């Protein structure tokens, strides 16, 4: 039987290649996501080493805001035995990335969506750190600066020229005096590095004159690093033998001191968190593709088994046991699985390169990376590919083993008797899917995984159930969709409709693959459209401003508010600042995400006397005029969570660890701009570490025309190329296009799954054409032209894809609606279905079948009439 299985493979190259392509692509996408992740991890690991450089020890403040390092600390360190060299540096804090941005000679800034722009105080000490001056010299005077050599080349910064800077304290201007090389190869992974003197940094960031962010130490050659570490730690006010392992538990510590190994590990960990998320998202899409592949492979196996029924019957007749038949089909699948997975690994590497190129093209450049195919990747690919193939072949193998010897004579299998059982099973599977979805949506999962896992599994199970049930409607839907074919294409149209309807199970399974891809796309569309509707509702009801200033990747400097306020064109100007804090009140439900007993909130503040005509938070009780240093306004849902009412008090911890009691002075309903609480500007300063402003709003003066207002606003905007200055209409537009970009990226990632689905349609048609050789021959004999044959196959394909598109859109819209309803109203309360887009999707999905039919149609038309009749 083994020999038979292998011979079978060798004799059916076409069928093999069609099945193989689906597996290769499914496995390939999985491999590519792993290859990308591993490659990027490697690349960031070497970056981490470069960042740490030759530093033996590094000192950071345990609490940056309350108790930063100072120049005095540096002097203390320098006096310690075993410290050979110590330097302090001022860097922009992690909480305000891109705080300092250079303006290029063409007046633009470097886009902040990509890799970050990092400014730091240059330590001109080759023995520490890992950067060396390449050309020119180090910055010495105020405002002088240097930049890494690749950024200099990319953005055309010339030494000797003077450039403007956007900083938290306003616009500055300084001469570029040199370029530097970071590490051996300047592998900044795309980031732009600016070096200033420490004093310049303090000036730009509005920091105290003796402030330092870090102290880097090189120990003397003969000194024991661990001993020096302890000396430094104690000298800077830590208790003896302090442990720095747990970053969340630094109580009682003044500073953190880490050696080289810890520093590298910490840096890698930070990168890996982001990379794991990125890799996880890719892997998620890869699994969708793989899942779709299963349908294709299973369908191919079952069609092929049905076609081999005569052969299998003969084997049974000459004495093969059901077990032997089953084994032969399974062995065939194992061989296919192993071989194609191997090819899939190769293809995966190519897909990784392609993905990187695509991401680059849409402006999400990945840093340079090596293609890393780890042993784990190889094992995962082989296992996944083989298991998927064998699982797909399982049910056809069982069906094959049930072939009766009589099939050798009749050529038909009697496998249609168990359909009722199949539908009952399908319904049961469907219910399990619904149950899992319900657990994900309403089960109150505490972590992202606890929500995503049941949702993903639920969707997968749901799709399987729908596929098992869809043969019930596949015939009918095909006939409805094909109804216009009869008047349009005559008997050719009718034949195609009947062909699609004659084998509902085959049609349904083939369509299922497309259904999955398209349902995910349409679900995303519904959610995206609802987001847009929600956003528009906010703009309609809560934001009345004519102009808005926003920013991506950095805070808005305070001076923007002042500049606009001083301009006569604007009658009213206000700003919103936002940050995070944690109320110590015990929440009623489980909104305590990190499980430390407090209630995590977003806090915002604004000038409550200047809200008229700009913002409306939808206050239902109390008044925002009352907000002072002893009061707070709560979002209605937050008030519910905390079980407090107007007049009750909540406790807010401040940066200095003291607690302030605030009485609830107002309850409001629109939290999309303000978040869950509003407090006074003074308390905001003390409770958060937010430096700048997140949103600036302005209202045109009565006497100012729209044109004049726009011009005045744009004139201010020209001074801040890193900020976005939008009129209310532009603001709407840009949000809408952001959502569209996300949707497009999503669709592109689902594109592979859709492509595999189309491949499946081609596959099924090719096998059907082969199966109907005689029929096509007869049609040709009685006068069907080649064109008509091609058209017949193409129309059948469009019916299969149409079925997939209709089912997919229906399910996708339903899932999208449920998701929008399940998401808390404070986040999204509007439900909007983009019907025209959904219809377009259905139309495109249906038409896509035509593409899939190209090859099978060509083959069918090429078939010689006689061989067809004689066969």
């Amino acid at each position, binding site marked *: 039987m083994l020999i038979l299985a292998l011979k079978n493979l060798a004799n059916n190259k076409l069928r093999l290649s069609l099945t193989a392509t689906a597996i290769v692509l499914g496995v390939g996408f999985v491999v590519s996501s792993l290859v990308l992740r591993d490659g990027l991890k490697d690349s960031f690991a070497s970056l981490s080493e470069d960042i740490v450089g030759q530093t033996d020890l590094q000192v950071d403040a345990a609490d940056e805001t309350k108790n930063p390092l100072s120049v005095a600390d540096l002097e203390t360190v320098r006096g310690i035995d075993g410290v050979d060299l110590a330097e302090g540096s001022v860097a922009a804090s992690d909480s305000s990335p891109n705080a300092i941005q250079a303006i290029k000679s063409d007046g633009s800034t470097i886009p902040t969506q990509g890799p970050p722009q990092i400014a730091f105080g240059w330590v001109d000490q080759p023995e520490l750190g890992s950067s060396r001056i390449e050309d020119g010299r180090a910055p010495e005077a105020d405002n002088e600066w240097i930049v890494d050599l690749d950024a200099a080349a990319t953005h055309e910064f010339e030494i000797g020229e003077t450039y403007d800077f956007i900083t938290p304290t306003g616009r500055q201007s300084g001469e570029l005096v040199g370029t530097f090389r970071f590490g051996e190869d300047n592998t900044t992974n795309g980031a732009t590095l600016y070096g200033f003197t420490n004093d310049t940094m303090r000036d730009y960031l509005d920091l105290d004159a003796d402030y330092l962010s870090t102290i880097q130490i090189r120990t003397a050659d003969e000194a024991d690093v661990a001993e020096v570490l302890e000396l430094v730690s104690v000298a800077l006010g830590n208790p003896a033998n302090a442990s720095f392992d747990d970053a969340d538990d630094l109580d009682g510590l003044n500073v953190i001191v880490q050696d080289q190994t810890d520093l590298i590990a910490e840096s890698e960990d930070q990168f890996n968190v982001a990379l794991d998320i990125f890799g996880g998202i890719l892997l998620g899409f890869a699994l969708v593709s793989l899942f779709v592949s299963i349908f294709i492979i299973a369908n191919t196996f079952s069609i092929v088994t049905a076609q081999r029924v005569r052969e299998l019957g003969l084997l049974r007749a000459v004495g093969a046991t059901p077990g032997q038949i089953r084994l032969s089909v399974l062995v065939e699948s194992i061989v296919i699985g192993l071989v194609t997975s191997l090819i899939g690994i190769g293809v995966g590497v190519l897909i990784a390169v392609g993905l990187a190129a695509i991401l680059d093209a849409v402006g999400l450049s990945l840093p340079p990376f090596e293609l890393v195919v780890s042993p784990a990747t190889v094992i995962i690919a082989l296992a996944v590919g083989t298991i998927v193939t064998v699982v797909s072949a399982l049910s056809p193998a069982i069906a094959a083993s049930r072939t009766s010897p009589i099939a050798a004579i009749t050529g038909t299998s009697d496998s249609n008797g168990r359909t009722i059982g199949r539908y009952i099973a399908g319904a049961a599977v469907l219910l399990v899917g619904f149950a899992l979805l319900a657990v994900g949506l309403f089960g109150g999962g505490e972590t992202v995984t606890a929500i995503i896992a049941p949702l993903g599994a639920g969707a997968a199970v749901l799709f399987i159930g729908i596929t098992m049930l869809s043969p019930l409607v596949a015939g009918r839907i095909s006939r409805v969709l094909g109804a216009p074919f009869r008047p349009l294409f*005559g*008997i*050719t149209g*009718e*034949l195609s409709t*009947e*062909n699609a309807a*004659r084998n509902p199970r085959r049609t349904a399974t083939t369509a299922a693959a497309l259904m999955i891809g398209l349902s995910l796309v349409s679900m995303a569309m519904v959610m995206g459209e609802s987001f847009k509707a929600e956003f528009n509702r906010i703009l309609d009801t809560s934001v009345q401003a004519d102009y808005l200033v926003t920013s991506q990747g950095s805070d808005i400097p305070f001076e923007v508010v002042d500049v606009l306020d001083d301009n006569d064109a604007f009658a009213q100007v206000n700003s919103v600042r936002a940050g995070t804090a944690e109320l110590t009140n015990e929440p009623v439900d489980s909104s305590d995400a990190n499980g430390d007993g407090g209630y995590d909130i977003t806090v915002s503040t604004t000038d409550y006397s200047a809200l008229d005509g700009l913002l409306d938070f939808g206050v239902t009780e109390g008044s925002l005029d009352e907000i002072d240093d002893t009061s707070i306004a709560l979002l209605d849902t937050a008030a519910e969570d905390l079980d407090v009412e107007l007049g009750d008090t909540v406790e807010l911890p401040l940066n200095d660890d003291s607690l302030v009691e605030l009485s609830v002075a107002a309850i409001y309903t629109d939290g999309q701009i303000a978040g869950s609480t509003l407090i006074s500007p003074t308390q905001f300063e003390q409770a958060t570490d937010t430096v700048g402003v997140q949103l600036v709003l302005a209202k045109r003066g009565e006497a100012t025309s729209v044109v004049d207002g726009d011009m005045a606003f744009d004139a201010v905007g020209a001074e801040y190329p890193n900020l976005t200055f939008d009129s209310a209409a532009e603001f709407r537009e840009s949000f809408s296009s952001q959502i569209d970009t996300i949707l497009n990226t999503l669709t592109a990632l689902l594109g592979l799954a859709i492509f595999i689905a189309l491949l499946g349609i081609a596959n099924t048609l090719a096998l059907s054409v082969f199966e109907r050789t*005689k*029929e096509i021959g*007869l*049609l*040709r*004999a*009685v*006068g*069907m*032209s*080649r064109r*008509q044959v091609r058209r017949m196959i193409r129309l059948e394909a469009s019916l299969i894809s149409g079925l997939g598109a209709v089912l997919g859109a229906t399910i996708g819209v339903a899932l999208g609606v449920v998701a929008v309803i399940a998401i808390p109203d404070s986040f999204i309360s509007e439900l909007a279905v983009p019907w025209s887009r959904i219809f377009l999707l259905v139309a495109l999905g249906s038409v896509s079948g035509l593409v899939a039919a190209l090859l099978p149609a060509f083959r069918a038309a090429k078939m010689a*009439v*006689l061989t067809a*009749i004689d066969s």
Partner: protein
Amino acid sequence: MSTQANSSAIGSNQTIGLATDRPAAQAVDAVKVYGAGETEVVALNNVNISFATGQFTAIMGPSGSGKSTLMHCMAGLDRLSSGSSHIGDINISELSEKELTLLRRTSVGFIFQGFNLIPTLTAIENIKLPMQLGRQKPNDELLNEVIEAVGLRDRLDHRPTELSGGQQQRVAVARALASAPDVIFADEPTGNLDSTTGAEILDFMRRAVTEFGQTIVMVTHDPVAASYADRVVVLADGNIVDEIHEPTTETILTALSSASQA
């Protein structure tokens, strides 16, 4: 045509009776060679034959003698290696693939041994298939007459799987007749049927020739079936070796036995 207006609908579409000297189908110096070199098989060795309009011809001969080959080449399903074949005035050896398709649709009818009907179409749809492929409106009068004649009125909306083998063949005959082709080719049309059912079909084909003036060429191994024909042509090794007019079962058997001895 107007002179025929009062005769049967089938006859009215035919040129029968007007030009008996012009054959409905004809093969001239027909040679068909399969393969090349060692595996070369000469299936037709310079065959000359013509089928008169309104005549029922049976082609007989031992297995492998070239009967099917001759039929396929004359019907435009296959091409000759040399020589020419004609349907009416048309030299089909010169036709393009597209023109051949149109010719099959309108001027030639087929009845095969086993697989004759499209399983997804009902009986009536199968009958109308050639016309519908050309998007022509069927001649309703003719269609009615044919359906009446094959006696399938109550089975018209059934699918092939719901019909018996004999009924299926009758639908096939009806389809061949319904487009009133110049000639109908039938390859062992009764080969799969029991003798009673077979006789019904043959009876029906006979009537189509006698009553409607249809031209039929039928390949068969069965001397009884061949005895329904006006003329029997015997093939052996790709040559015409004998020809009987007004055949009876006995004369056919005699001719066949001498052919197999040759």
